[in-house]
Each structure stands twice: as structure tokens, then as C-alpha cells.
């Protein structure tokens, strides 16, 4: 009898394991925390639904009044990722975005929520697109240690800024008024402005040099900002980071001792 019970118990466990397997892609894991879809849904309906909408398509009640528009989760295309262009984000990428917020948009920082709650939200957000069940995110991009910023590095960065055609959108002086700037739209067709590097404003996907380096590798999917993952090597990307940093603070090229690059 006891033996039979034991078998029944094992069988039940096996069945429940199989049962939970298809749903596993909808869970979320950040560090040691695991997210729960049900709890995430309750939090979403309390905090996120007004902008991102009941269907997660970014068409909530407040959406018409927002620019840029709230993210459409059904597309599973995200700006801020640690993964290459075209890949799904990691759970930790979505968690970071929820925590940090997106500067110069309607998306605030959700650090007031518990870490566990933010991980629960990640689990629920992933249910809006089947992509998270069909595909796996690629490995995160490598970020090697940063070499020191020198005038030479900044000068090389300035030349790459020309050669890589960054200036056609961001402008020759980095103010965001390049010849193509006015034509840019995001992937939903809404106008989108290139970043003004002289503004001193915070970057959307994080503030550090490492964040900027990562943005250059991954690109910001869903926007015109492409990946420079194969177009430049790591040293060149650091040069561009140093150059872009040098534009911050309204300094002129003369003050920075940069020779203007002829085109």
C-alpha cells in the first residue's frame, strides 16, 4: 500500500513537471529571483495598463498623449538590450529598463516597487508575445575594459563619427540635426529625433560609458539607430564613446582641440 502511494506520488510529480514545462518560457529569472506571471499581471493592471494597454500593445488610455509612444510588447522588439540586434532581450534587460525607466519619455523608474515585483512584471510582459516561447535570446554582447580617453582616442572617434555616417542623423556637431534627421521614424511610423549629444541629457539605456559602448554594439531595435557590432572593432567603439562624451557640455571643437573633419 505504502509502495503504491509512493509510485502514485512519483507519477503525480512527473505529470506536474511535464505540465509546467510549456509555461516555463513565460517565467522570468533575474539573479536569484524568479518571477510569477499571476502576480505580475496584478501589478501590470495596477501600474502599467494605462499606457501599455490591457493587451500590451502600447495602446493604453494615456498613449495618445505620449511621445515617444509606450512600448508594444506584442512585437517583442526592445530598445535597451544586452543582446545583438534582432535578438530577444534577456530577462535582466527588461528588469533593468523597468528599474531605470527611460529618460525623456513617459516611462518612469519603478525602483519604488520591490525587486521581486519588478521580476514578476518581467514574467507577465513576456506573455504578450509568443516570441519568448519560440525563440531564445542570443548571448549578451561582450564589453571589454575601457581604455583611457585621450585626445588621440577622441580624434579617432571624431573621424569614425564621420566615416560611419553617424553625422547624417546626429549632425556634424552632434546636435541631432543631420540631413537625414527629419526623415526618421520608429518602426511604428512615428517621427523620432536623433539624440543631441551636446545636451548633457541622460541616455535612454543607461548612463555609463559601458552602456554607451553596449548601445553601439546592440543598436536600439525598433528605432533607426543601427548596430555597429560588426562595423567597428572594440577599440574603435571606445574611440566613438570618448568622442561622444567630449561633445557633452557644449564645448566647441576648438576647446576640445579637435580638428574639424573635412567631408
Amino acid at each position: 500500500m505504502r509502495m503504491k502511494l509512493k509510485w502514485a506520488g512519483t507519477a503525480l510529480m512527473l505529470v506536474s513537471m511535464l505540465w509546467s514545462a510549456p509555461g516555463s518560457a513565460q517565467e522570468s529569472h533575474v539573479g536569484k529571483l524568479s518571477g510569477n506571471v499571476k502576480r505580475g499581471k496584478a501589478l501590470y493592471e495596477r501600474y502599467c495598463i494605462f499606457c501599455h494597454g490591457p493587451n500590451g500593445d502600447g495602446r493604453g488610455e494615456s498613449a495618445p498623449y505620449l511621445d515617444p509612444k509606450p512600448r508594444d510588447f506584442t512585437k517583442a522588439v526592445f530598445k535597451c538590450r544586452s543582446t545583438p540586434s534582432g535578438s530577444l532581450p534577456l530577462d535582466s534587460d527588461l528588469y533593468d529598463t523597468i528599474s531605470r525607466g527611460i529618460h525623456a519619455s513617459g516611462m518612469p523608474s519603478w525602483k519604488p516597487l520591490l525587486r521581486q515585483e519588478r521580476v514578476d512584471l518581467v514574467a507577465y510582459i513576456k506573455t504578450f508575445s509568443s516570441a519568448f516561447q519560440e525563440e531564445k535570446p542570443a548571448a549578451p554582447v561582450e564589453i571589454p575594459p575601457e581604455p583611457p580617453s585621450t585626445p588621440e582616442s577622441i580624434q579617432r572617434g571624431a573621424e569614425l563619427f564621420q566615416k560611419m555616417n553617424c553625422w547624417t542623423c546626429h549632425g556634424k556637431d552632434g546636435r541631432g540635426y543631420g540631413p537625414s534627421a527629419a526623415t526618421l521614424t520608429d518602426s511604428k511610423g512615428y517621427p523620432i529625433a536623433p539624440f543631441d549629444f551636446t545636451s548633457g541629457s541622460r541616455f535612454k539605456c543607461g548612463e555609463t560609458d559601458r552602456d554607451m559602448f553596449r548601445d553601439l554594439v546592440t543598436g536600439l531595435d525598433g528605432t533607426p539607430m543601427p548596430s555597429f557590432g560588426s562595423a567597428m572593432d572594440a577599440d574603435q567603439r571606445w574611440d566613438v564613446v570618448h568622442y561622444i562624451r567630449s561633445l557633452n557640455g557644449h564645448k566647441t571643437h576648438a576647446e576640445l582641440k579637435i580638428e574639424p573633419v573635412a567631408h
Partner: protein
Amino acid sequence: MKQKFALIATSTLVALSASIGILPGWAGPADAPSSVKGSVKFEGTAPKSSRIDMSQDPLCAKAHPTPATTEEFVVGMEGGLANVVVYISDGLTSHNFQPPQQPAVLEQKGCQYKPHVLALEANQKLNIVNSDETTHNIHPNPNNNREWNMTQPHGMALEQTFAREEIAIPVKCNVHPWMKGFIAVFKHPYFAVTDKNGSFELKDLPPGTYTITAWQEKLGSQTQNVTVGAGEAKPLDFTFKQ
């Protein structure tokens, strides 16, 4: 005599290898492959192509001694409409197709996409080539595939695939806003893009009854039903009006 033998042997070999090459995924031994062949015409006055101003990038402008023009309507001799995707949209009985080994090639040349409309199979490799001196970024905006956006300076190798059928994915270069093209992705090998005379041929079809669709980027889609017998070369024409 020897020469004649060699000739026969070579031609047999060519014929054999061709017949092996042209039966992707279809293994009906008794039935000779059929085809649908015809052209797409434009009736009426086609909108004129407009000049493209490439002056913002001198490296683009210098590739065109006479200014480049838009490619939304390319009407050739006798009203033949180029860049129309013609494909089987319904009626296939087999759905197991392996993508060809040969990659499709999309070239950026003179700051335009060559070809303007490209068709390939799902998971077939797509080689993207930048033949220009300037740096491009290639940015497809799909509905049913993953979106990506890659910078490509001259000389950089770039290979991509699309996993799912989609007709057709708009492609653009954000750096050069006039650069627009389309990539059509199919889960079967029965598709063609019309040439400059509007001609197309769907080759090596298994005999059957099919719905055939012609898609043009500005004019939309048209469909026709055809029944193709074994070994038959069925004529089929489409006419777009505006």
C-alpha cells in the same frame, strides 16, 4: 567520333544535373514538372519616376552621372511591369521544403538596392553586400520576422536569414532615406520576380490546381486560379491598372 561522344556525355550530364537541381522537395517520379509562364503588364499611364537627390552624401551622388530615379513603378517595353512578385499562394500539397544552399544576394550599389525587390526562401541565407564607398545601415521592418538594423561599411560581410514567410518586408537605410526596397520570404520555392519586361516563370511545379498571386509594392495583390497538367507550360498574364 570521340568528340561527338564527349558532347553527348556532357549534355547528358548537364541534363541530369539540371533535373536533379530542379526538383526541390518534390519527388513525383512519373510526372514531368510543369510550369506557369507569362508576364505582368501595366495598363494606362504609369506615374513618372522622380529624381532622387543624393547630394547629402557625395559618395552616393558621384555614382550617378545622370540622377538616379525612384523604382516604385518600373514599366518596360510594351507595358511590362518589373519588380512584381508572382507566387503560389494556395494549392500546394507538400509543405516540406529545404531552403537552397545557394544564398540570395542583396547589393547596395549607387546607394540603391539591387534588386529593388528580392524574393527568397525562409531560412535561405541572404548575403548583403555594400559595393559603395559610403557606410550604409540595412534595416528591415517586418511584421512576422525579427526586426534588426545593421551598419555596413564598404567591404564588411553580412549574412542574415528570415525564419518565417512574409510578403513583403520593407527594407530601408536610415542614413540614406531614399533607399527603399522589399524582401519577400516564402516557405516554398515557387515564386519569381518579374524582370524589366514584366516576364516571369514559375518552374518545376508539381501538376495541380493553384492560386497564383502577383504582388506589387504600390498596386497591391491580384490572384488567379490555374490548373497545370503534368509537363504542361501554362500561360498566365496579369494586368494592373491605376
